[in-house]
């Protein structure tokens, strides 16, 4: 009953915020409202007991995405210039598709129904076999990293490809065209150094955020956590430092070659673990052969690939942020 009440509140707010995002034409408003949207989704996931997803959504959707969108807004316009659309074709198409999807969900089993197929065959198998085969308390990490490890490899490469795509658009060299000189642009507007309170509090919190990111990385076996959340948290710490001290100092702290290398190294680590498993006699990404004992092999494999995931995600976020902050004013 409580879940229904909470979900009612949260989903109503979601609809209101979504409609408001569509109807506004000030892009800044849209960015702020999409931050609220991500937070509502994170709370919703949490009410539905999906803690890992809630953590990822909160950190990436409400934290880093807002900063990246604001960076993009600083380089472009603030108002949406698209003319109002009067055609009825998109409305009819989306309503028809939405209606078909809603009709299809009416056939699905109710949320939490113990007689649903997924709760009779799939979920019990994972819940019974995780302590036997992998012996990791967090079943989500076990499924993500080991049982469905190939899928997660694809996800890491998707993140890697996204980074390559962004870098090919934003470039790694200084953009040509008019640019306000580094000195003049830098002094008052690139950083928060002359505001004492944000500077002190921000710099004080950066080590805690990075430390907490490392905690989440290695604690992913036992509680909500893992590579994706940890990478986003570490990147958030570095981004906070860059916001407070300015883009130039942020690039001194984590140079662009380093974050680029992290991106490639993380994806490479993941694939290398898979190949190492093949070399040691098992199949691709079959961690059981990595150590003297299958369970220890699984632990080692999960540790290595989560490290790879964390490195890639952190590198990607930092690279994209530096690419935005480097462009200055054209």
């Amino acid at each position, binding site marked *: 009953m409580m879940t229904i009440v909470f979900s009612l509140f949260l989903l109503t707010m979601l609809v209101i915020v979504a409609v408001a995002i569509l109807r506004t034409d000030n892009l800044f408003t849209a960015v702020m409202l999409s931050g609220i949207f991500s937070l*509502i989704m994170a709370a919703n996931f949490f009410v539905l007991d999906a803690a890992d997803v809630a953590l990822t959504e909160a950190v990436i959707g409400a934290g880093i995405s807002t900063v990246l969108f*604001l960076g993009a807004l600083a380089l472009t316009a603030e108002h949406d210039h698209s003319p109002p659309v009067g055609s009825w074709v998109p409305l009819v198409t989306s309503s028809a598709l939405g209606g078909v999807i809603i009709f299809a969900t009416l056939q699905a089993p109710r949320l939490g129904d113990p007689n649903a197929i997924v709760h009779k065959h799939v979920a019990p198998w994972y819940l019974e076999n995780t302590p036997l085969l992998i012996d990791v308390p967090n079943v989500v990490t076990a499924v993500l990293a080991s049982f469905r490890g190939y899928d997660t490899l694809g996800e890491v490469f998707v993140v890697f490809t996204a980074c390559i795509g962004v870098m090919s658009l934003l470039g790694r060299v200084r953009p040509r065209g008019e640019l306000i000189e580094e000195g003049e642009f830098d002094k*008052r507007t690139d950083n928060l150094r002359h505001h004492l309170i944000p500077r002190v509090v921000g710099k004080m919190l950066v080590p805690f955020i990075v430390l907490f990111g490392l905690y989440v990385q290695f604690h992913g076996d036992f509680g909500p956590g893992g590579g994706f959340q940890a990478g986003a948290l570490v990147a*958030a710490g570095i981004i906070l430092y860059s916001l407070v001290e300015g883009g130039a100092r942020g690039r001194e702290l984590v140079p662009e070659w380093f974050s680029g290398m992290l991106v490639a190294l993380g994806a490479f680590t993941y694939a290398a673990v898979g190949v190492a498993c093949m070399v040691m006699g098992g199949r691709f990404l079959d961690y059981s052969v990595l150590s003297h004992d299958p369970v220890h092999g699984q632990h080692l494999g999960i540790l290595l690939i989560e490290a790879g995931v964390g490195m890639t995600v952190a590198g990607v976020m930092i690279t994209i942020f530096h690419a935005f902050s480097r462009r200055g004013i054209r």
Partner: protein
Amino acid sequence: MEWVYFGTCIAILVTMVLAVVRGVVGPTIFDRVLAVNMFGTKTVLFIAVISFLSGRPDFLDLALAYALINFIGVFAVLLFFQSRGVRRAAEAERDAGK
């Protein structure tokens, strides 16, 4: 004790709804940033109380993570507005020079 948790959750949820209304209605953009910030701290409290309500206190990591991340957005907003003056001056100069 569970009803006390439930009551607190309802209070926090009602405040979240009020913050969202301010975020949607608020005439200036700063009202909306205020709404986002307030919504963030209420989410942290909501997660803390629900993790006690559902008896799983190891979910407090989410609340801790979000308490650390919440204010990065506001700093980015401050930087955005700070650089807006210089950006507008640069645009005006470029438009005048064209």
